[in-house]
């Protein structure tokens, strides 16, 4: 499909890293075996069951003994039930633990809001010393995992972007946005699953004669403020796009940069301060809440109607 070849899955990356690093542990939350890693290194694959607070504390304890720990858990539960453990045991205590979450955003669909995570990025972002990564496709996920393993300190990685975005090789660095499309009328700053939607929005807008650039903002924290300021100065209009509430996540982070820089106008695509209570499939929920290429397109056009500031 593209020049990158097949991406390695999370369990396969773990297996590869775990082969050479005997200090690598996985602490998981009742999600079954973590691929071949669990089979090959059962002593280092700990299933802590449905004990989120304990699970994060155990991860901190393993790290206190010098281990490199990957926590593998459900996004809504590990970030909310165990928030204080993440904040105090991992970040305040400077522990080298990587939280890899599944079920970020609305992927749980009709299971309901208990299983949606549209606050996880906001919660993780406010914690001092936390790095927050939201990869846009399987290749980027692999790179995030490898980069997180190299970084000393707590990292939150929201997985779940399974469709390809990147078509050719690219440089990946935590905290450095990746320009994916050029455009002089507006810049779409997207993260995670919404990067693919942003590219589609770029294509749709192009047909209307609107040139919208796309920035893949895989790192929510530390945010690439320089790239945002540069895009705002060059294009005047910024649209953020995230599978997350508009309060506290990427949209808020970008708003902070723009307000402090005094440049650009902003529209935020995301869940508008509501629980997604409609009973509907994942794609239908995204549609209902405007988390689509059309939603991004509308936001860009609304800024254009407002004129260039």
């Amino acid at each position, binding site marked *: 499909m593209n020049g990158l070849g097949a991406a390695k899955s999370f369990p396969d990356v773990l297996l590869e890293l775990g082969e050479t690093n005997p200090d690598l542990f996985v602490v998981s939350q009742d999600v079954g075996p973590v691929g071949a890693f669990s089979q090959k290194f059962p002593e280092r694959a*700990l299933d802590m069951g449905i004990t989120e607070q*304990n699970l994060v504390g155990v991860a901190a304890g393993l*790290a206190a*003994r*010098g281990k490199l720990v990957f926590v593998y858990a459900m996004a809504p539960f590990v970030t909310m039930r165990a928030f204080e453990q993440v904040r*105090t045991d991992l970040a305040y205590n400077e522990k080298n633990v990587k939280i890899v979450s599944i079920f970020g955003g609305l992927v749980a669909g009709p299971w309901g809001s208990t299983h949606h995570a549209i606050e996880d990025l906001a919660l993780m972002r406010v914690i001092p010393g936390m790095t927050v990564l939201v990869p846009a496709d399987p290749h980027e996920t692999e790179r995030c995992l490898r980069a997180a393993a190299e970084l000393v300190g707590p990292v939150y990685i929201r997985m779940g972007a399974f469709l390809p975005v990147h078509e050719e090789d690219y440089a990946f660095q935590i905290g450095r946005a990746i320009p994916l499309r050029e455009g002089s009328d507006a810049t779409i700053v997207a993260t995670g699953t919404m990067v693919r939607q942003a590219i589609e929005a770029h294509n749709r807008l192009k047909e209307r004669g609107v040139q919208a650039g796309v920035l893949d903002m895989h790192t929510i924290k530390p945010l690439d403020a320089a790239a945002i300021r540069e895009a705002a100065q060059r294009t005047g209009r910024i649209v953020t796009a995230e599978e997350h509430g508009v309060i506290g996540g990427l949209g808020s982070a970008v708003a902070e940069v723009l307000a402090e820089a005094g440049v650009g106008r902003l529209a935020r695509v995301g869940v508008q301060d509501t629980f997604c209570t409609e009973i509907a499939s994942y794609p239908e929920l995204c549609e209902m809440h405007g988390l689509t290429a059309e939603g991004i397109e509308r936001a860009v056009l609304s800024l254009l109607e407002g004129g260039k500031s």
Partner: protein
Amino acid sequence: MVSDSLIRRLERQAAVIRRHAIEIATEHVCHVGGALSIADVMTALYFHVLKVDPANPAWKGRDYFILSKGHTVLAFYAALAERGFFPVETLQAYEAKGGILAGHPTLKAPGVEVATGSLGHGLPIGLGIAIACRVEGAPNRVFVVMGDGEMQEGSVWEAALAAPRFGLDNLVAIIDHNRFQASNAVDNIIPVEPLADKWRSFRWDAVEIDGNDMAQVVAALESASGGPKAGRPMAIVAHTVKGKGVPCLENTPRAHYTRLTPEEAAEGLRGLEVAP
């Protein structure tokens, strides 16, 4: 096996730990009651049981100690200082601006493994350390001190439930059962009894001792950390007196967080002088 001379030495050392706590509590409003109740356990740990190297706190062979009830930090700091992790004079800089001794343990103080203060965090972290040592095949042990009010935290019981699954005989939980929490007697808030039975039902070995009787403290800690335990973690329910050693504080809600008048402190210090 526990010699009288050892017990007398530790009792004298415990009196020194209490003296530091009383002196600091004369200068500061602080959590002195729980520090006085746990002083004997802290002394037995730091002056007899724990394998530590004050000159090299990160020594890989060390035993781990976590004060999960972080507010009773006076006894912890006093034990660390007396054991040589930092100068005893540093205790005078408790909560001093720019110092290393916060009102709850932080990583700034040499010998503190984990910053604590919010209750219910210590046992899960201790469990993680114990698992890591077990997987390494290393002999290090892990001791976690909790409060009885802390037993109201759900995360304690998550860890209590999980620990036996890993067959750990290198993990010891010590509950400072002084029967008071911040505002009142535990029994008047949310009772936690029967405490030892709870730990047993969670598949831990459990013993109950007088936690202010040095001989009993030493015997329990020695049995918890060396004897054959069939791969089970150990809980020691230490019945103690909150404010132990300062008569006007003993078994009062006030003991939790207060400042001592010079007269109250003098009374406590006089009691320490006549200790055996």
